[in-house]
């Protein structure tokens, strides 16, 4: 059991590189939190600070209200699983799993029981347990590393991109397993990843990081549907949000002008928001799966464009659509026959799916 709190945590490497800047964050007990962001955003450093493998330059780390900043990793009761799993190649899989329990005064029957439980939880086939760890495939090796973490029953589990170096099949299997474990074990999980689908699938809360800072921290659905910035809108989603520079034109109705096209919009708050910002320009964000596409002009689908490329990805297609000379957006939908490459199309953005950002990429709201 552990509620983790980071208070104004800053980490500077080599006196100049600020890897983490003034990070404030609370991870509630028994929750699964994903630290999500591109390479170099500070997510791994943050996790290593939670683990006690890095000392923050400034700030404090609290476990259940108690300051653990001066404590080493071994004194914090945390278990880590790394991108490159650490197993002892000369030991058997059984010995690898049992190792964290050795020297703790447990009798061999208890150890055997705990190992058997972990083997069952991780669905490790019993007939491989006597094999040397040097001879196993990467997926099983990562399973053993996870097993070594859970067998200790620590307060906190920390995962650093555990699936990055696995092939698609092994990745899918382990993803399901970790998700299941996080519910079954009932402990605090912190999981670092660059893959938005892993974070969406696993997390109770997603912490999106960029340039050493926490840029949004919320439920996966909120982060996905209501990004605080264009960065978050782009980073989440497969593919990410479309962004179009737009200008508001008022006559009897309100219109958004996007390149040569303009369309009526009924967002009552928009006018007020832009007036507050003293501008008539903004960035319109819309997710590809919410863009409507039609071969003919119709109500709600009035922006003219041309389909320049149809990207087939199996269960869905991504239509790459050009509006005017310079604007390109993506629409994602079920494969359909009525939209072909080179064809003229009409797109629409449902009012309730449009998000409005300032020109520097911060969401506008009242």
């Amino acid at each position: 059991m552990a509620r983790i709190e980071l208070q104004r945590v800053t980490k500077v490497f080599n006196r100049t590189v600020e890897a983490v800047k003034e990070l404030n964050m609370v991870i509630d007990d028994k929750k699964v939190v994903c630290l999500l962001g591109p390479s170099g955003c500070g997510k791994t450093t943050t996790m290593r600070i939670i683990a006690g493998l890095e000392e923050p330059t400034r700030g404090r780390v609290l476990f259940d209200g108690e300051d653990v900043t001066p404590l080493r990793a071994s004194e914090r009761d945390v278990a880590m699983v790394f991108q490159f799993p650490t197993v002892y190649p000369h030991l058997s899989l059984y010995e690898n799993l049992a190792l964290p329990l050795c020297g703790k005064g447990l009798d061999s029957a208890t150890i055997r029981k705990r190992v058997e439980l972990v083997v069952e939880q991780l669905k490790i086939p019993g007939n491989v347990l006597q094999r040397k760890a040097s001879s196993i495939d990467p997926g099983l090796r990562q399973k053993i590393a996870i097993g070594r973490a859970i067998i200790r029953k620590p307060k906190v589990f920390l995962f650093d991109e555990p699936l990055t170096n696995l092939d698609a099949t092994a990745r899918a299997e382990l993803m399901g397993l970790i998700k299941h474990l996080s519910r079954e074990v009932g402990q605090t999980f912190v999981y670092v990843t660059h893959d938005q689908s892993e974070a969406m699938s696993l997390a109770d809360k997603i912490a999106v990081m960029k340039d050493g800072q926490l840029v949004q921290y919320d439920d996966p659905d909120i982060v996905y549907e209501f990004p605080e910035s264009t960065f978050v809108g782009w980073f989440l989603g497969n593919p990410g949000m479309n962004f179009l520079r737009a200008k508001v034109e008022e006559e009897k109705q309100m219109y958004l002008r996007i390149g040569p096209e303009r369309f009526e919009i009924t967002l009552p708050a928009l006018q007020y928001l832009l007036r507050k910002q003293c501008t008539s320009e903004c960035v319109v964000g819309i997710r590809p799966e919410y863009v409507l596409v039609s071969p003919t002009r119709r109500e709600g689908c009035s922006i003219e464009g041309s389909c320049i490329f149809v990207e087939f990805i199996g269960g869905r297609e991504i239509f790459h659509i050009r509006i005017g000379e310079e604007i390109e957006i993506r629409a994602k939908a079920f494969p359909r026959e009525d939209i072909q490459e080179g064809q003229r199309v009409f797109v629409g953005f449902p009012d309730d799916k449009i998000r409005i950002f300032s020109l520097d990429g911060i969401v506008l709201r009242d």
Partner: protein
Amino acid sequence: MEVLLKAVRKKFGVIPALDGVDAEFPHQTFTCIYGPPGAGKSTLLRIIAGLEVPDSGEVFVGGKDMTFAPPKERNVSYIAQEFALYPHMSVFQNIAYPLRLRKYPEAAIREKVLQVARFLKIDKLLDRRPVQLSGGEQQRVAIARGLVKESSIYVFDEPLTNLDYKIREDMRGEFRRFQREFGQTIIYATGDPVEALSLSERIIILNGGKVVESGDTRQVYRQPVNLFTMMHFGFPQANVVPGEIISGDIFSCSLFSVKCALVGIPRDKKVVCTFRPEDVALVGEDFRGVVFVGRVFVVDVIGSESVVYVRVGENGEIIRILAERNCRPGLDENVKMGIQPEKMLFYSSLDGSFVGKGGS
């Protein structure tokens, strides 16, 4: 220029890496070689590039027998998965290196490097050293170094595998743009089904050193001639329900019975019914098609879609449904699933060969 492989075999020690591969890579076409780790993808690429010589079989490049020709005679540019940049050189010099080797004049080198760098959006990084770049930027430099040579055939070995998810998404677009703009023959190995689907016009499915099948990428996805392809080429994985053929043209299993159009019935009549996760849906009372019931096991939101896992039948087998992201049935809820019979594909349980489609 096209590439043709005939009955290519290659062993490393006693382990066959390629076990009689026939493959065709048409002129100015983007072909992906798709397969699990250990399928023989890298060996195949290295043989095309001339970095390995096959034990037997022939390699034709542009109609000429190049089986034993050294790499420099082939006009093939090979970009390895594990690329190595020269750490002491700037990005510019790294990209220019292949042209320097070929003794290009300095002005021509500058022009070509700038052109490729602009294309890959690394033209602002030319003065930096590799260590000052992110992984994605380093990968682009390696790709630029491969592209700068102006070959007629480009061979890429899983170039995006170790990159961040978002960079992979961007780079997919870049590879397509490159092929469309310059129109070369591209041969690209990958283990990621979405990448293969998104990039390629033609696909070769490789497993255990053998070609499982090949053809137009969409065609292969929609109607694979082999169960292996159906179960491995696609994400999420396809659904499979075992059963048998009764009374001529009826497939029957514990969940449903359906009429089918069969091209051949295996002797033991045991077949599996398969269908893609995007072709099955949660349905209401008015759905017309094949209907069966189950209990929701997991709902996995993966971005713009959800994958709903439903347990069905006595053994609790899992059915995967690719649904919109707002599709969120409750856990353990009893649900009804529906599918059009034409979307079902049947394969022999014995050897995985195609047996027929649903519908009549």
